[in-house]
């Protein structure tokens, strides 16, 4: 196989990209939006996790202190 010939053929079909190519717009605003969205999403997740954890801890405490309430919880599940 002649690598040089293949290379020439490829470069004719797919010419190298302009080395000085630049983005058509300022990309930082989009990057900043993405950072802010991800931060907000992470914040929401942690709030939810905190609330969920507190609720679970409360339920476990209630069951430990009042074992008789277990059938009541099971009934409502």
């Amino acid at each position, binding site marked *: *196989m*002649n*690598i040089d*010939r*293949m*290379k*020439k*053929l*490829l*470069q*004719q*079909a*797919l*010419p*190298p*990209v*302009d*080395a*000085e*190519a*630049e*983005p*058509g*717009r300022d*990309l*930082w605003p*989009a*990057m*900043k939006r*993405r*950072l802010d969205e*991800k931060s907000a999403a992470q914040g929401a997740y942690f709030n939810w996790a905190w609330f969920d954890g507190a609720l679970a801890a409360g339920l476990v405490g209630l069951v430990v202190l009042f074992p008789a309430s277990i059938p009541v919880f099971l009934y409502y599940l």
Partner: protein
Amino acid sequence: MQNGESKVLNQFRLGSQEALEALFRQHQRVVYGWILRIVRNPEAAEDLTIESFWRIYRAHARFEPAQGFEGWARRIATRAALDWLRTKRAENELSAETLAEVAAPAEADPAVTAEIRRKTVLAFSRLPPKLRITATLAVIEERPQKEVAAALGISVAAVKVRVFRAMRLLRKDLERQGITP
């Protein structure tokens, strides 16, 4: 490395968004250009530049300032571009037109007709993404093999092997299409 640059890199390592912005503005053109070489689609390259910097920011704690930012960013950008190529391959959306979208006018060889070029682009688009990305950078863009190896996270020998395999698959595909390179 200058003190100011070193300070920015250290701040980035600690997760500073101000440092990220400084690095983004300084390196976005290089990262965009590198991605564009691989995906050959300006809109996708813009999106992937943002995706790459997002990955870069997520990995800030693993960054080693002594190794320099550009090479590290290029490696992450290459990975993002490779993921994009894989997705496009899975979606079967990578057409010959997309591949040739940013093609600059070249000095046409009269022996290479439009039909041969079209079939070559088609055959190239059918290569496995790992081989295509290596051949794009090393053969079409003529980047130094050491640079390609660093960007792909493989050895120079592995780059040579991938280029050879890509050329062999390409030749076989072209022969099936009735073209003898």
